[in-house]
């Protein structure tokens, strides 16, 4: 197996590498997600992006996502690669590859991981528009401890 399976990197991501990291003779299904930034957000033309992380906390939280996936589903392999730094439009910022005996587990776990990363991993994205830039992230929904809905 080449490279780290759970990793945050300034290098370009390679979906094929993530797939190869989770290959397993007992795996009938590998589901892979590649997240990239689109050329527009809410109709505004995005020119460039920048990702910043709080490390090593981000690495630990990404590992926690992988651990939670393995606790909830019977998986053969999990690879999560997150990109940092400046990205062009269309470049991959996130690759998740999940293998399992049956495809349902791989699909569900892969989908879960993306939601979970957006909840708890301290990584931030800045979008650069013509004539402006903005850090993405909604103050309202951010609740990594999962307490606000109970605390009211």
């Amino acid at each position, binding site marked *: 197996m080449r490279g780290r399976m759970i990793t945050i990197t300034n290098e370009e991501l390679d979906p094929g590498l993530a797939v190869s990291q989770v290959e397993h003779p007992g795996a009938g299904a590998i589901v892979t997600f590649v997240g990239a930034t689109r050329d527009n957000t809410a109709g505004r033309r995005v020119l460039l992006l920048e990702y910043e992380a709080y490390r090593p906390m981000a690495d630990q939280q990404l590992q926690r996502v992988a651990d939670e996936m393995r606790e909830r589903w019977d998986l053969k392999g999990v690879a999560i690669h997150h990109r940092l730094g400046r990205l062009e439009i269309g470049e991959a910022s996130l690759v998740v590859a999940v293998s399992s005996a049956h495809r349902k587990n791989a699909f569900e776990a892969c989908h879960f991981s993306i939601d979970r990363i*957006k909840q708890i991993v301290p990584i931030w994205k800045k979008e650069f528009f013509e004539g402006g830039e903005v850090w993405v992230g909604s103050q309202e929904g951010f609740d990594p401890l999962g307490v606000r809905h109970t605390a009211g």
Partner: protein
Amino acid sequence: MKITVRLFASYREKAGVGQIVIEAPEGATVGSLAQMAAMTLPGLPQPERIVVAVNNEYRDHDFALSDGDEAALIPPVSGGR
């Protein structure tokens, strides 16, 4: 006790600084740190909405700080997309 406070993304840009060291009174909690930060640093949300990690773990506002802790003010995350 000395607490290192780290700032990221929008918080860092609005404050104009990525890290400060503050002298906190004994018994200070994450909640009292958030109040102190909201009063002294520009551009932070209301204290009760500031999410804080202490030594790389998310902690609620009751959590008691210790001398030498690294407390990070965590803006809403937006990775992965």
